Each structure stands twice: as structure tokens, then as C-alpha cells.
């Protein structure tokens, strides 16, 4: 057997929420039976952005904020891969906010996990877009779940909490299945407290509302999902669970990309394409 890199132990502070995400993701990959070499983890920059070093899979450390375009390029070029983007809330919602918007809209078949701790961990504690109003002198925090619901192309939106470990793993597993079945973009936010700069563990218990408990809740109904999440938010609560799960046009479909037809999977030797190239050349004769 060839020896490739060995995953390292995480370097997070003891108690960091990101450990929980790491464990949940490891379990979800196993539960979804993803062979190690078919998974490509594309991580952001931040404390969260070292998770790829700790997993048995292909890993890429993207630029700060560019997890999603990178992941989109990779997933479109080779749809046989399971591409999993993973990063922080600063990475994904501040510098990467525009790409998130367009990923919900484009609906590429990949998974994106955001580790939300309300803070920039690696740069030592500045507010992230999800920092609570108490920290921001009254600025309302961003709710990426609402944002995702507002973009009509989105198909899978969930939120978990590292404290509720098994639910988080299950949500990630479902997201993986969504992406692997080429149903589109699976967005999962993990509430993952930063014990060093924004220790919010104590707050969450009372604040999280697990929507999956409600048997009547229908994740296929976007409008109701939105009302529910918004009403909860008015009550100071954050919805957790599988919030949206529906179907829609995917980026891969629109580009006609699949296991046979994809950029990384073509025989690109000129010799195999001479007649096509000659036809193109003829188009430009005068």
C-alpha cells in the first residue's frame, strides 16, 4: 500500500467546538460510506480551516473566504468526487458572503459546513458577522439559514450544534447524500463555540429550538420554513435541524456535467479530438 500523508491531531484549544465538528464529520463520512480517496475537503482560513489536516481524505487549504468558488470549480470539474467545503463564519459569511449567496443560487452538488462561533478565532477574537448584538453594540447578527432560504435556488439547509453531536453527524450525513446524489448544494451550519474568545456554550441550551422535534414540520415548504425560522428569531431563538430539503436545478445539470462528461474526465490528447478541432478551424476560414 502506498503511504500518503498521515492525518494530524487537531491543534485547537482544549474545549473548542471545532472538535465536535471534526468528530461529526468523521462519523458522517463513515456512515455515508464515502471511500477516503473520493472525498476532497476544501477548508477556509481560520482555526476551523485546519480540519482538513485531521481527516483521511484529500485536503486543500483555500484562500480566506474562497472555499465555495474553489469547491465549485472542483465539483464541476470532477463530479465523481465528494467535495466538502468547511470553514469558519468569518471566512464564510464576511469575506466569503458573496460567494455563499451565489452558491445557494447556483446549487452546485457539494457540501458546505460552516463552523459558527461568532468570532474570528485565529486572529484572536474580533467579531464575526454572527457575533451577538451584545458584542456589536446593537448590530443584528447574520442568520445564514434565513439568507439561504431567501435564495429560491437553494435545496438543502440545516443547522446543528456541536453539543448535540449525533444530530449534527446525521445532518452532515444527509447533506453528503444530497450532494453525492447530485441534488445540489448542502449547507450545514454547525454552532461551534470558541472557548477562548467567545465562550457561548452556556447560552446555547436555552436558545436553540430543534425544529426536527416537530413532526408536522415540512422541510420541503420553503415559505413555511422561512416564517418559522423568522418567528423563532423574533423570540430570540435559533432554529436547529433540517430546515430545508427540496429539489431544484443544479449547476452540474445545467452544465451537463456527470460521471462521463466532465472537464477532469476527458481524454484530452489532441489525437483523440482531431476531427472536432478541424471542424472548429474550418469555422474560422475566410
Amino acid at each position, binding site marked *: 500500500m502506498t503511504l500518503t500523508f498521515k492525518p494530524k491531531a487537531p491543534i485547537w484549544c482544549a474545549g473548542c467546538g471545532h472538535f465536535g465538528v471534526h468528530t461529526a464529520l468523521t462519523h458522517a463520512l463513515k456512515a455515508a460510506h464515502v471511500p477516503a480517496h473520493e472525498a476532497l475537503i476544501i477548508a477556509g482560513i481560520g482555526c476551523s480551516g485546519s480540519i482538513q*489536516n485531521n481527516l483521511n481524505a*484529500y485536503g486543500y487549504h483555500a*484562500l480566506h473566504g474562497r472555499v465555495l*468558488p474553489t469547491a465549485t*470549480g472542483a465539483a464541476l470539474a470532477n463530479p465523481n468526487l465528494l467535495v466538502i467545503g468547511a470553514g469558519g463564519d468569518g471566512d464564510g459569511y464576511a469575506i466569503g458572503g458573496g460567494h455563499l449567496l451565489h452558491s445557494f443560487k447556483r446549487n452546485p452538488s457539494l457540501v458546505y459546513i460552516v463552523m459558527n462561533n461568532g468570532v474570528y478565532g485565529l486572529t484572536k477574537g474580533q467579531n464575526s458577522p454572527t457575533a451577538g448584538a451584545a458584542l456589536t453594540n446593537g448590530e443584528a447578527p447574520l442568520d445564514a439559514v434565513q439568507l439561504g432560504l431567501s435564495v429560491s435556488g437553494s435545496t438543502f439547509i440545516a443547522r446543528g450544534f456541536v453539543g448535540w453531536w449525533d444530530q449534527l453527524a446525521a445532518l452532515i450525513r444527509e447533506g453528503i447524500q444530497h450532494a453525492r446524489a447530485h441534488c445540489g448544494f448542502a449547507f450545514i451550519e454547525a454552532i461551534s463555540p470558541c472557548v477562548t474568545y467567545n465562550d457561548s456554550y452556556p447560552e446555547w441550551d436555552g436558545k436553540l429550538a430543534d425544529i426536527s422535534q416537530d413532526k408536522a414540520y415540512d422541510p420541503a415548504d420553503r415559505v413555511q420554513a422561512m416564517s418559522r425560522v423568522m418567528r423563532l428569531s423574533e423570540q430570540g431563538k435559533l432554529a436547529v435541524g433540517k430546515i430545508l430539503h427540496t429539489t431544484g436545478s443544479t449547476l452540474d445539470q445545467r452544465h451537463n456535467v456527470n460521471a462521463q462528461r466532465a472537464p477532469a474526465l476527458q481524454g484530452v490528447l489532441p489525437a483523440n479530438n482531431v476531427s472536432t478541432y478541424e471542424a472548429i478551424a474550418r469555422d474560422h476560414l475566410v
Partner: protein
Amino acid sequence: MDDGMMMASQPQIMDSLCVAVAGQGGDGSLTLVTLIARALADYGYHIYESRNVASRIKGGHAAAFLRAGVDPVPAQGHDLDLLIAFDVEAIEILGPRVVENGVIIFDSSSEPCPMGGLKAGVEIVDVPFGRYAVRELRRDLYKNSLGYAVTCAILGLKGDLVRAKMREVYSRLPANVIAANLAAMETGFQVAGNFGYRGGRSRWQPRTLNPTPKHHMTGNEALAFGFLAAGGRFFAGYPITPATDIMEWLEKYLPDLGGVVIQAEDELASINMALGAAMTGARTMTASSGPGIALMTEGISQAGSAELPVVIVNCQRAGPSTGMPTKPEQSDIGLMTQGANGDFPRVVLCPATPGECFEAGRLATDIAEIAQIPVFVALDQVVAQDKATFTLPHMGSLTINRGKRLAGTKGPGGPDYRRYQLTDDGISPWTIPGTPEGMSLVTGNERNEWGHVDTGPDNRRRMMDKRARKLETISAMLPTAVNWGDASSEIGIIGVGMERGVMRDLTSLLAKQNKSAAFHSPRTLWPVLPETLEFIAGKSRVFVIEHNQEGQLFRLLGGALASRSHMTNITRYDGRAFSPEDLFRRLHEEGADL
């Protein structure tokens, strides 16, 4: 108008011809030039087309140019044989460039043609286009069809051929539109007839040349084709003048080959999508112009650090910032060669003709993958958008080189696989995600051979040195300069991109005076090749011609150790190309003994 007057002399044998069509943006001058070009190409002429437009959709002075010749045409000429002017502004701007005894076809619908500033003997063919076209819906097209017939009659082109060409060019339009335009064309023949251009009487007489079929492409198109032919299958871009054509051309051809063209939400997304695709092993390109390239620099540095192959095309336009979007410049040389954070190996190619653009697209794709680095292709608006006839290479003869890419599904062979293995040539064998047991960590951080972060000083030095060695490894692949003229001359003239054509025209201009110089036109901008330093060292006087203010190429050569005591910089940055006469005058002003 005395219809016999201009016909007194014999028609002139057409060895070369310069035509301009000008009016307000949206008048469709480009279409008319295309029609004439296609007709002339049928006679076997070499063609060169260019344009000068404002950065707006309708209105503003807009001109299209055509130069035809029995020999390949290196650049747009300055002097005009024939001007088709749709308004007074067009006469004011271009009228003075019409040669003695040239012809102006003028749209006299609203005003008479102003005669001030015109040279002696210029014939004015007054055509009230508006009067004829007033009832037509597609007024622009109608005007052009009319003007096309008038022009072809004056040029002495065969009516049948002229009619056939229009049918061909308009073939995809609705039948009623075609019919209306064919009618307009016939009206045009009548108008020409009223000026005496009928029954075979004309001002020019075309040659019938060897009609070898030629390809006719812009630099952008040819570059895109070269990329595609090198197995390029992924393109991510964002519209920007003058680079958009590349995306549009690829959108037409790439999907059929299992490729993808994606319009990103911005340039940060384009370059990073490209990096993501590159990681999967797809041959990948993006393209933009100055403002977009500036946005991409962080991503380009990432490609350098993470060792990802990507081709970045920069169709340079006049800066700084938004500047003059439709005007040519070569003012991103510093940006491309040195504009990113940190040190990393990169290559900047600078083709000058559509044929070289095809080759640069092909070669850049190979070099990027072989060396696992970002490779720029630097065009300027002239090279990018001017359109010329040339011959593409034989498609059956093309090859590609995938460097140290390991076989698809097999493991990398050795007992272990290190994505960033230290090697003598600086290049690590690599395998793509999906390969069993080929797992790797790819990162823009400093790391050890396995891809794990490692900032230890020894590791750092080894990794930096490894990456730097790549340039040496691929040095033999870098395209060398085109040299011509009198190699023994004491005077050397250097220029890249859009300067090539005018340097060629200057050669002819000098030849007429029995003069010469040594011309050197690099096709690799970075690294600066030894041949250029040798060329400079071998002359007693060297002139560096370039389109920017600060002398960015001049500075680059100096930074690369060229001694510059005998070097002179000739710059231009007003958004206009040099004419050979301009260049000759500037060289003289700088004391060139030519």
C-alpha cells in the same frame, strides 16, 4: 457630379488597401468592415481588421478599420485609401488620414461633408443613407448593405462575388431581413453607378491571388482555440472588455468537448474556481483585463504557493483603474511580473499575432501543468481584438505534455507519495483527487513534503528553493524572441505585443530609404530571457518601444540586469497605436541614426 471625371485615369492595381468605416457606436461599422473583408479574402488578400470604439453601447465615435494586402498584414495602417463616414465627426477625426486622391463615402442625410483638412484630390461620394434607409427597422444593417455595394463597386469587385458574400455572412438572419438587405445592396450598386462606378468602371482593380484558404481570427479567439486544442477543458471568467470574447468563444466550443465555461460572480470567484478545477487535474484557464487581474493577484499567489497549474490571460487596456476600457495599453507588466504577495515562480508569455496567440494558449497550458505554476498570457487590446488572416497549424500534428502527472487510477508508484516531494528539478510528481492511496494535502501555507504546515527554517528554505528551481527546469520551453532586420546593425529596437506589427511596418518604411536596424521582439516577458540581455549587450544603441507611461518593460529589463546606459525608452500612453511614421519620428527625436 461629373460622372466621367474620376474615371479618367486607369483603375489602380490593388496591392494593399486601407479602409475605415466610422460613425456613432451602434451604427454597425464593424459589420460593414466584415463584409468587405470577406469579399477581399475571396480574392486571396491577407486581411487585418481593427476597431476604435468608446466604452458605451450606442453613440460616441466608433470606427472599424480594414487593411488588405497581397502579403501578410502586420498591423493597422495609418493612411486611409477609402473612408466610409456616417457622420461629420467621422470626417473630422479620420478625414485628414485619407490619402491624396483617396475616396470618402459620406452619409449626407443631415449635413454636407465638411471639406476642411482633406487632402488634394479626395473624391467625395455623397450617399444620403438616411433617405434610403428611413423605412427600415434594422436601419444599421440596411445602411451597411448599401454602403457595402457602393464600396465594392468602387473597389472593382465582381458583383456576383459581392452578392454571394452577403448571403453567406447574413445566412443566419431571418429571410425577410436578408431580402431587405439584398435589396439595399442593389440600391447601393445603383448609387455607385450614379457616381460612374458601373459597367466595370472602378477606382481599384483587385488582383487575383492564390486563394489558399486562410484562418481569420482575433488574438483572443486564437488564444482560446490554442487552450482548447491543448486539452483545456475548464474556463471560469467574468465579463470585461477586452477579454470577454475569450469566454464567449469558449462557450461556443468547449461544452461539446465535455468542457465547462462558467461565468463567475466576480474575478475572485473565477480565479478560485479555476484553482479548484486545476486541483482535479482539468486543464484550466481564466481571462480578464487590468482591474480583474488586480483582483486575482491573491489567487495567483495561491497558485504559486500551492503549486497549481492555471493559465491567466490578461488583455491589457489603458489604466490606471477603469481608465479607458476600449483602448490598448501595456501597463500591467509590473502587475503581472511582480504584482502579488511573496516570491513564487511564474511565467508571462507575450504573443503578438493570432498565430502566436494560438501557440501561446497551447504552450501556456502545457507549461502550467508541467511546472505546476501560474502562467500568464499577456495581450494588449490590439493583439487581443484585432483580427487577421493566418494559417492554423495542422490539427493532426498537435501534441501535449502532461509533465509529472501520474497515471489516473494507479498509485504514484513509489513506496510513498508526497505531494510536495523535494526533487532536483523542483517539480513534484502528482496525482489527482479520486486516486486511491494518492491522498494529499494541498495548501498555500508553507508545508513539508506531505503537505502538513511546517514553518521550520530549514524546511522553508528547501521548499522555497524547490519551487524556484521550476523556472530553470522549463526554461527551454519558453518561446524565444522574433528577430529580424539587419542583425549587424548598431541600432537595436525592442518591443512586444502591439509594437510588433508597427516595427514590421517600420522595417518596410526604412527599407524604402535603404536603411535598416536590428529588431528584437520577445515572446516571453518573464522570466527575461538571456537572448534579450545579449541582444541589448550587443548593440551600441537600443530603443525600447512600449505602450505605457512609466516604461514598465524598460524597467523590467533593467531589473533583469540589462545595462541601460545605451538604452532609450520610447513610450506612448494616449490610447492610440503607433503608426510607422510616428515611430520613425520618435526614434529620430531620440537621436536614432536612422
